[in-house]
């Protein structure tokens, strides 16, 4: 027995038994197994067991398989809506808790920088620090007196026109603390007190809108704040009616330089004895920070001339 040759042949025996060798190789192996007892026994064993393996008849799937499959598919088709919904709510809740927790930590630590990007707030009124964004160039803008912060602003006696929009740029913008969480960009603004005497406040993640004085129903500054402090200058201002809290808009723009306008809900403001309808829009810059708040009134405003 040539051991090296036997080793080679045994290596090729499975393929030989299965008829997978070429003619020349098959003839060589066949010639060897005819004269080699050990390799012949090996070949017979392989033929026996592989023959048994090949002779196995396929079995049919159980009749209950289709029902089981149908049940699993039905379960799958029901599951996504529930699970995705639950996950979405869970994620939102987790983000909110994270925001609140981080916010409280930051606040308590006193980690507020003195300098921060200016907050531009749109208000439908005139002010030395106001940029007017009015589609009608002929409209008249009222003016708020900034020289005496303690006094109420004075305004023109012309009523505001419908859908006029003004932009107030606070002179001393407060710093912004921003938390960049992986999935939610959270913005916090310190309370801004402008010369027209307004402070907006809210509980953490809500925007608050308040009418700020009686000189014009359009003198509204809206901002997001969590301090709970508030100071309303309007003497005859119905705070409970004017306050409007709304969730922070979720669709914060991501594109650089974009000032996306997110319409908020309409509300009614009670200023003195008059009621005006106010429509508020919030604009975000590319960092997702509030760049402006635009407030439109219906013009049915009686000015308080205090």
């Amino acid at each position: 027995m040539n051991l090296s040759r036997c080793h080679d042949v045994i290596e090729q025996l499975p393929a030989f038994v299965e008829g997978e060798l070429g003619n020349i190789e098959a003839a060589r192996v066949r010639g060897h197994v005819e004269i080699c007892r050990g390799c012949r026994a090996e070949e017979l064993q392989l033929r026996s067991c592989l023959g048994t393996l090949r002779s196995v008849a396929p079995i049919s799937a159980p009749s209950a398989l289709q029902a089981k499959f149908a049940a699993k598919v039905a379960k799958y088709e029901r599951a996504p809506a529930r699970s995705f919904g639950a996950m979405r709510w869970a994620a939102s809740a987790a983000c909110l808790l994270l925001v609140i927790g981080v916010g409280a930590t930051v606040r308590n630590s006193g980690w507020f920088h003195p300098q921060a990007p200016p907050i531009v707030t749109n208000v439908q009124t005139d002010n030395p620090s106001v940029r007017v964004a009015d589609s009608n160039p002929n409209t008249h803008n009222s003016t708020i007196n900034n020289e005496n912060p303690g006094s109420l602003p004075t305004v023109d006696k012309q009523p505001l026109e419908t859908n006029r929009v003004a932009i107030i740029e606070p002179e001393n913008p407060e710093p912004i603390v921003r938390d960049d969480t992986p999935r939610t960009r959270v913005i916090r603004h310190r309370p801004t007190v402008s010369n027209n005497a307004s402070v907006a406040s809210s509980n953490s993640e809500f925007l608050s809108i308040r009418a700020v004085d009686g000189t014009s129903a359009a003198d509204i500054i809206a901002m997001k704040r969590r301090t709970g402090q508030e100071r309303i200058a309007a003497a005859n201002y119905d705070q409970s009616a004017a306050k409007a809290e709304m969730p922070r808009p979720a669709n914060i723009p991501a594109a650089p330089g974009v000032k996306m306008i997110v319409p908020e809900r309409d509300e009614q403001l009670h200023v003195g004895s008059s009621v005006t309808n106010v429509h508020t829009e919030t604009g975000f810059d590319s960092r997702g920070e509030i760049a402006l708040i635009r407030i439109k009134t219906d013009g049915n405003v009686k000015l308080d001339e205090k």
Partner: protein
Amino acid sequence: MRAGSMAQRIGAVVTGERASNLEDADNYLVSRFLDGDRSAFDTLFAKYQDYVYNIVFGILGKPDESQDVTADVFVTVFRSLKGFRRGSRFATWLYRIAVNRAVDSTRSARLRSWLPFDDATREIPDTADTPERVFDKKESRGIVQKVLMKVPVKYRDILVLRYYQDLSIEEISEVLSCTISAAKVRLHRARLQFKEKYVEEFGTDTNEPFPMP
């Protein structure tokens, strides 16, 4: 081609143009399903349930478990059919999922340590067979399954594909996502493993005339 081959069991001889037609038929059903026709998937299920079950059962060797995994395979296909590349062979893709799910199942459940081999012979017989043939087939199925369960899983799956499903080495390489050379080597080792376990189980009763030189 053996009696239980894939092609014959779906009522056609898979050669050349016919094979291409079968693939076209599968792709047509897939397209219909993706277009919203649920009945197209039912057709695919009816067509392939036996093949998938045979693969899974060959690897797992346990009817209840195999039924569960087979249903899971089809659910996976149902869910991921949108990701199926049109133009590729549906059967190959389906078998790949079946093999992977079955192999995963053996790993997670560690079935090999406690498999009740008696279950392996509990199949539904082909009613067209004579009682003797049914007995022989049950017998050989039980023997083979018993030996298969002693073969490592990495060889068991290729044996199932080759001998239960009658796939060519090229098809096997596609299902197992390996090269043809790798598939050949693996099949070679699998055969030797099977022979070794077979001899361990049943001895070396070959009873063949042995011509002496």
